[in-house]
């Protein structure tokens, strides 16, 4: 058994032992507050067992292992339905960025340890009503204020802001220069005076995302994590940090074998639906697509293992998988006909077709919309021209609104 395989076995065994306390079944019927509390205990247990911050430096309480162990653990963890998503963004991007760009090392260390143990949660305050795909179009501003800064404006779509203790934020510090050049990157205390968090209810009925308002929020200059005007580069670094996160060829929806089971159980025209050509075609095509992604991902892992850089094809994961999930979920509801109406907004997106379906659109938008992903592939991988950008080179305050 390779080192990685024994690591996988060790992780799988530990996760298995945690499942009764923290897994899918233990969470059934819990309120969100109780689920979050359970999640914090689970995160602490992970930390104690040496499975938190797997690929982070040991000086910050991490394990000092590689991406490979991290991805391996994540893939095993995904199987049990643990309440770990509250920490997904926090530990995924803001906290690693803090480790990289935070200036006060003692402060950073304290924050990282608390985040790793589930005591504190961080959010990522990038998107705004006027700056989503066009991240550099944001308008929230920070103005010099004594020795520090004063923030005013509004962020939106901030995941878990309502539970967050801190956030990383990109704001405009100079409207007189082209849009990418006038941004600066800070961290903020989400409990500071002037910060208001207002949950947004999403289509599926849940409220993971928020509007966040900043009214004269004062921060000192030691909150700054980039040069003044150099925030865009750190924002891009944030988005690149977890490039090789655990992926799921099912698009974080149900696996195909659940669909095969459904098609075997359900009768269509007096015969099992699995015998219907339309259903068979969709099963086969989805399988071919997902197996391709699986193979891309296995190959990427093997490449990393031998010290090579994986190819750009990893960028296909979300684009391809979530579209496949969306359509397959529609078909699964079709198959159930009048039984397909049944909806439980707390059901798992990985096991319930209606829940998978209603939440699929967020997967095609959050973390880069399909269109921006296609642009990235076209421009960065294939070398096709950049889109026409009429705002290029123009001072931000002269761009027509």
């Amino acid at each position, binding site marked *: 058994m390779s080192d990685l395989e024994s690591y996988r076995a060790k992780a799988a065994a530990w996760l298995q032992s945690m499942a009764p306390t923290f897994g899918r079944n233990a969470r059934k019927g819990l309120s969100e507050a109780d689920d979050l509390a359970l999640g914090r205990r689970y995160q602490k247990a992970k930390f104690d067992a040496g499975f938190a911050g797997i690929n982070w430096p040991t000086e910050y309480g991490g394990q000092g292992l590689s991406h490979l162990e991290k991805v391996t653990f994540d893939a095993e963890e995904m199987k049990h339905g643990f309440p770990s998503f509250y920490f997904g963004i926090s530990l995924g991007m803001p906290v690693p960025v803090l480790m990289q760009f935070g200036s006060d090392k003692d402060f950073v260390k304290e924050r990282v340890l608390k985040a790793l143990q589930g005591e504190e949660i961080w959010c990522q305050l990038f998107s705004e009503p006027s700056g989503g795909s066009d991240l550099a179009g944001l308008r929230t501003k920070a103005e010099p204020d004594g020795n520090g800064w004063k923030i005013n404006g509004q962020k939106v779509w901030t995941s878990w802001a309502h539970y967050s203790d801190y956030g990383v934020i990109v704001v405009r510090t100079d409207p007189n220069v082209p849009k990418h050049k006038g941004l600066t990157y800070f961290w903020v205390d989400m409990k500071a005076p002037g910060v208001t968090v207002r949950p947004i209810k999403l289509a599926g009925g849940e409220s993971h995302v928020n509007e966040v308002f900043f009214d004269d929020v004062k921060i000192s200059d030691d909150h700054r994590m980039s040069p003044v005007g150099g925030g865009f580069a750190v924002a891009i670094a944030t988005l690149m940090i977890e490039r090789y996160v655990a992926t799921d060829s099912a698009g974080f929806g149900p696996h195909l074998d659940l669909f095969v089971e459904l098609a075997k159980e359900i009768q269509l025209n007096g015969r099992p639906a699995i015998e219907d050509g339309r259903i068979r075609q969709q099963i*086969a095509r989805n399988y071919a697509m997902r197996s391709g992604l699986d193979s891309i991902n296995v190959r990427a892992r093997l490449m990393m293992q031998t010290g090579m850089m994986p190819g750009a094809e990893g960028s296909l994961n979300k684009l391809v998988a979530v579209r496949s999930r969306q359509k397959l979920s529609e078909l699964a509801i079709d198959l159930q006909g009048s039984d397909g109406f049944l909806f439980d907004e707390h059901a798992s997106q990985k096991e319930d077709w209606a829940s998978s379906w209603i939440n699929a659109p967020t997967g095609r938008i959050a973390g880069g919309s399909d269109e921006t992903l296609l642009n990235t592939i076209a421009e960065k991988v294939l070398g096709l021209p950049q889109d026409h950008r009429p705002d290029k080179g123009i001072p931000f305050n002269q761009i027509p609104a």
Partner: protein
Amino acid sequence: MTILYDEGQQAIATESRRVLEARVDKDALLPLLERVGEYHRPFWDTAKEQGWTGLALPEANGGLGLGLAELGLIAHQAGRSISGAPFLTSSFGAAKAIELFGSDAQKLRWLPGLASGEIIGAVAFAAGPDALPPCPDVTFTDDRLDGIARGVSAGLAANIAIVYANGPGMRVLALVELAGTQRSAVPSFDNSRLIADIGFSGASAETLAAGDAARDAALHILALQAVVTAHEQTGGAEVLMEIARDYALTRKAFGQPIGAFQSVKHRIAELYGLVELARANCIHAAAREGAADFVTAAAAARLSATEAYDTAARDCIQIHGGIGVTWEIGLHLHMRRARSLAIEQGSSLFWEDVLVDQLAGEAA
């Protein structure tokens, strides 16, 4: 087996690409379309000279003892340059049938010639829409074949064929020499495939497998050929994606390269997705040879490669506008090949069924 190519394999890919780019071009291929029954001899001579014909056959039988991954890499390059002869796949399939299911005498008799490329093999399983018919048209009685095998790729030039036939109360996988059989060329949209109807009237044949074993054997051979073909299709799709990209960078309209229009650039980015999924499935399938899920992996490779090549052919022509549909520019060579490869080793409908049977646990 790992799914990372090693240095030797990468060298095979680079070298075969270099050789084929030097020796095959569309101007040599276009005239073949207008004649029935001719193939591009320089391609096959190259294949023989480079040892590709025996690449994936055992050393004991005159081959090089490499595997499906290596042959796949050659097929990928052949797909990029549009191979001018159908034998790489069919001779390999025929040779594997003999290697896996033949007697020592049969191996001794046929494999060295197939490995050197002097003997050409064909595989005749299909009966119209059925790639592996429950009841084949050709009958096998007392070691003799009767009936017509329809639409056999490479059939016009092959020396031997592996036939899936209807024996007394069971199916038979049979080996037959084609000298003396009635062969008629099928005029096709892709004439260099040498497609033939082969008529047998009492042709003497030898059994390779019979009964349930015959169907399993035939499916296995078909799956092997499907993996080779999928590589070829992926190569074709890949080069079309590159051609489309290059054209989109140079052709201008409304004051900018057409590749700056999102409807064009996204279309090419989507091709990238299809090509990479197909490639990933091909590499995986080649690595699964001999494993229990080989047929599943082959089906997935075949489905994604067919989709990639057909879509790339459609979209690449579309992106070229009017020039894309001219005889001269030759994009129709790919369009034709995409379709002929799509049906040669069992259509998507066939492989969808095979795949779902495997997934639903209903495999024979």
